[in-house]
């Protein structure tokens, strides 16, 4: 694993690296580096397989993390390439020309996170959802429970008493450092 990361370091600027397991390393790169790096990897290294493309929403940081998982199918090891892009009007370069199956990943990410991949076919074409008119649902600021309450009524008649609150109330739990109101 070390050699391949050294090779990458020699050609691209790597922000951070981490060896999670003997067969899984992780590197972080700038968004602009991703496509050149992946192109180079597919053409010149055994990491020819794009296993996985995923997004993590770091709402607090205002960033999306994109994770590309490349696998060396004969050497049995994987490299996770991570990059962070701003959350506002998130756009990322597409890799569908390197791997045809990336179209599906990019289509789903576009639908679920609202990240746009210019040039990738099927951007904006619904994949999983139908008639969706809210925030992209996998974003962390989309509240699924609120949506559920608004759209999917539950069967009425459920009443829950929280033991913690109930016990305090019944037995007269009070505080004295603060006035009640």
């Amino acid at each position, binding site marked *: 694993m070390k050699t391949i990361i050294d090779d990458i370091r020699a050609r691209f600027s790597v922000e951070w690296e981490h060896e999670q397991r003997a067969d899984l390393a992780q590197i972080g790169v700038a968004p602009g580096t991703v496509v050149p790096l992946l192109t180079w990897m597919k053409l010149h290294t055994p990491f020819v397989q794009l296993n*996985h493309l995923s997004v*993590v929403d770091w709402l607090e940081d205002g960033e999306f*993390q994109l994770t590309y998982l490349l696998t060396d*199918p004969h050497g049995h090891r*994987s490299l*996770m390439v*991570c990059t962070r892009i701003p959350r506002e009007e998130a756009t990322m370069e597409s890799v569908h020309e390197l791997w045809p*199956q990336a179209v599906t990943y990019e289509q789903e990410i576009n639908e679920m996170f609202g990240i746009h991949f210019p040039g990738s076919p099927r951007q904006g074409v619904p994949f999983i*959802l139908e008639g969706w008119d809210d925030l992209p649902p996998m974003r962390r600021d989309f509240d*699924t429970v609120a949506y559920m309450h608004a759209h999917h009524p539950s069967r009425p008649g459920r009443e829950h008493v929280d033991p913690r609150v109930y016990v305090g109330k019944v037995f007269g739990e009070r505080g004295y450092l603060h006035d009640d109101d």
Partner: protein
Amino acid sequence: MTTTETLRRRVQLWFGPQHPGITGNMSVQAWLEGDTLTQGITHVGYLHRAFEKLMERRKFIQSFPIVCRICVPEPDTNEYLLAAALEELSGLDREVPEKALWIRTLVLEMSRLAAMLQVLGGHVGSMGLGVVPNWTYTLRDYVLDRFEELTGARVYHMYTVFGGVRRDLPEGFAERMETEVLAKIEAKLPVIDNAIFDSSVFRKRAIGVGVVPEEWADEMGISGPVVRAMGIPRDTRKDFPYLKYPELDFEVVTTTGSDIYARAWIRRQEIAQSVDLIRQILRRMPTEGPYCAKLPNMLTWTIPPGQTYVRAEASRGEMGYYVVTDGSDKMRRVHVRGPSYVHGVSLLERLIPGTNIADLSPLMVSLQTCPPEIER
């Protein structure tokens, strides 16, 4: 426009979601010329339950009941992978007891067996031969009986959790497994061979149909019986060893042809292999010892920040879990990458042009597309 041209007009056909030949609740939007498909687009989302979203608001232990529902025929792979990922991120993986590892291997192999029995029947069922699925579904039911005995449920087991498994093997489990399941399967396999692989109907419909070119294997990440039917010995159990597989004695089954027949053949061989593996596991499993590590309070447990990707061999191919934790008591992100994500969408769409309409259903079965795994 001449009559012939009119007749050769492209017809658009929605195949599914309500269609007896479709695998699960999905649909293929296909364009036909005559009875040949010229193009197809996979449509999923009919089963979208937003697992990944829901797991982001559930505590770690609460994700286990939900994660097994991602794949109906084979829930245990999901349970194992979530457990493995969280154990790796929390450092609990070093404490999983030996016996738990063996039981997990057993459960994974049992679920592979059950799923492959189901899909082997599906192979012929999709061609209209109803009797073989009858047998294989019954055989699968015998496996489910043992699952029920072991895990307390037939379909959704919720049995593997981090630290190990939830219950010990019951008394006499190995004997019942042998007499009630394995022996019955072995007795039936030759009959099934006769009815499928020797059948001229099946051979005619399966050989040379749905051939996946070998050069797609690497770049698309094709896995499971589909890639092994190309003659490539690719198997996560060997390539990325996990649990007790390195200690078990088995060879990766391969064949050539890369068509529906080859994939069915692989599955039939792997059924036999699974039977053998289950015997090995039951023979070598320690009888004493704990089956789960000591767990902290699951209601308040937090896992330090980190990310990982773990994989295991499901009956359909490589199943992967990408898990990100942020130090809280919930997962920041979990992304399930099932083999069907590639097989059922990209690969299927690339295979469809030129396929006969009658072969679409067998083709989908042979790719073992599992829609809940695509849309989650």
